[in-house]
């Protein structure tokens, strides 16, 4: 394999690895290629995929209390291992092969002693809530409002949207609460410049049927001529085939 072809193959495998599992043969090949190209950016594509994931994901879900407690118990049993910055980044990758050094064993004992006296988590100064951010956006000259209401179902919704800022907030009332493990609501933005409506993000509805969420559009919207709410599989879809639950039209006047 020529050097250029070798580097190209390395990049191909790294891009694959960032999005799907490699076969054992591909993993071996990747390790060999990384050894042959010590200056290669082994984590760059994975960081890029992580950033894209953040762009497409909704707001983080709250962590269940029982699981949080489980994590604290696990923390008490396993002290963090400070890996050396100079070590190759793939040493600890996808395996449990990290060697625990002697000082780390001592650190575990120290952690066990300290755990019972850990201070409470630092509480940062609260950031503005979505309601406060929406109020600010409402006062922005570039912001427009779209409303929708279904007299039969009692569902109503309002979107405040600024194309200039690519920012918006959706408030819904009267939607049936959903089980996020089975289905999620999804907002769509009608944009004449796009072949399909633009994904505005998925959201869940609380028990009282209301929700206020930030519009999350991974694609830049050139002109928002309307908004639609549908019900989709968890995580949403790229192109909706479902019927609209509610259509929101820009406020007239």
């Amino acid at each position, binding site marked *: 394999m020529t050097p250029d072809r070798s580097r190209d193959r390395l990049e191909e495998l790294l891009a694959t690895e960032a999005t799907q599992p490699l076969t054992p043969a591909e993993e071996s090949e990747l390790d060999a290629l990384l050894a042959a190209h010590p200056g290669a950016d082994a984590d760059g594509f994975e*960081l890029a995929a992580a950033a894209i994931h953040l762009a497409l994901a909704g707001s983080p879900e709250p962590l269940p209390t029982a*699981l949080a407690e489980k994590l604290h118990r696990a923390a008490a049993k396993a002290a963090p291992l400070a890996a050396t910055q100079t070590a190759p980044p793939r040493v600890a990758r996808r395996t449990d092969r990290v060697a625990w050094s002697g000082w780390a064993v001592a650190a575990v004992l120290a952690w066990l002693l300290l755990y019972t006296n850990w201070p409470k988590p630092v509480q940062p100064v609260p950031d503005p809530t979505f309601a406060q951010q929406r109020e600010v956006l409402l006062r922005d000259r570039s912001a427009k409002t779209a409303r929708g209401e279904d007299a039969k179902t009692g569902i109503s919704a309002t979107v405040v949207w600024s194309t200039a800022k690519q920012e918006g907030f959706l408030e819904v009332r009267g939607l049936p609460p959903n089980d996020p493990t089975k289905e999620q609501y999804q907002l769509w933005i009608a944009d004449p410049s796009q072949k399909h409506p633009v994904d505005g993000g998925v959201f869940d509805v609380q028990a009282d049927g209301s929700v206020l969420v930030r519009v999350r559009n991974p694609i830049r919207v050139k002109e928002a001529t309307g908004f639609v709410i549908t019900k989709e599989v968890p995580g949403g879809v790229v192109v909706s085939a479902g019927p609209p639950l509610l259509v929101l039209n820009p406020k007239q006047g």
Partner: protein
Amino acid sequence: MTVTECVLPRIAAGDPAAVTDCIARYGGLVWALARRFLGNSPDVEDAVQDVFIELWKNAARFDPVRSSEATYITMIARRRLIDRKRKAGRAPAQQALPDEPVGPPQGRVRIEVEEEAAKAAAVLGELRDDEQRVIRMAVYEGLTHEEIAAATGFPVGTVKTHIRRGLIRVRERLSAGEGVK
């Protein structure tokens, strides 16, 4: 979020309060990622624990010049979760999960995630529609290249090219001095 506010360097330095902060700040993010990858599987809680242990082991590897803390944590989580999917090799079984929340994600983390999201979203917006669609299917929906090819009608080679090109573009944007401010 400044470097001094990051929790991973504190973990690497042995600050005993840092692990608690890490769970409080990023628990929701890791939980959402695990649910995204594994659905309603009984494996989800173990996966979250696995991710956090991996985070603590790799805390010192976090480089604020290369990415935000949220992006780094998402990378570690994705890595472990993709590995779990490889080992499981099947769709997750459905099972009810406890849903009692600790509380909303902490504010600074939410803002940081928003900033990272905006950065990557800007790059996605520069890609063609078909490229965006493929990237979303691969990165967010977790479809294999072959599954994407079947869903879109593109040859597998084209799918791979779209993914690689999109990742290169985002990587360039992230490496253009866009780390922690």
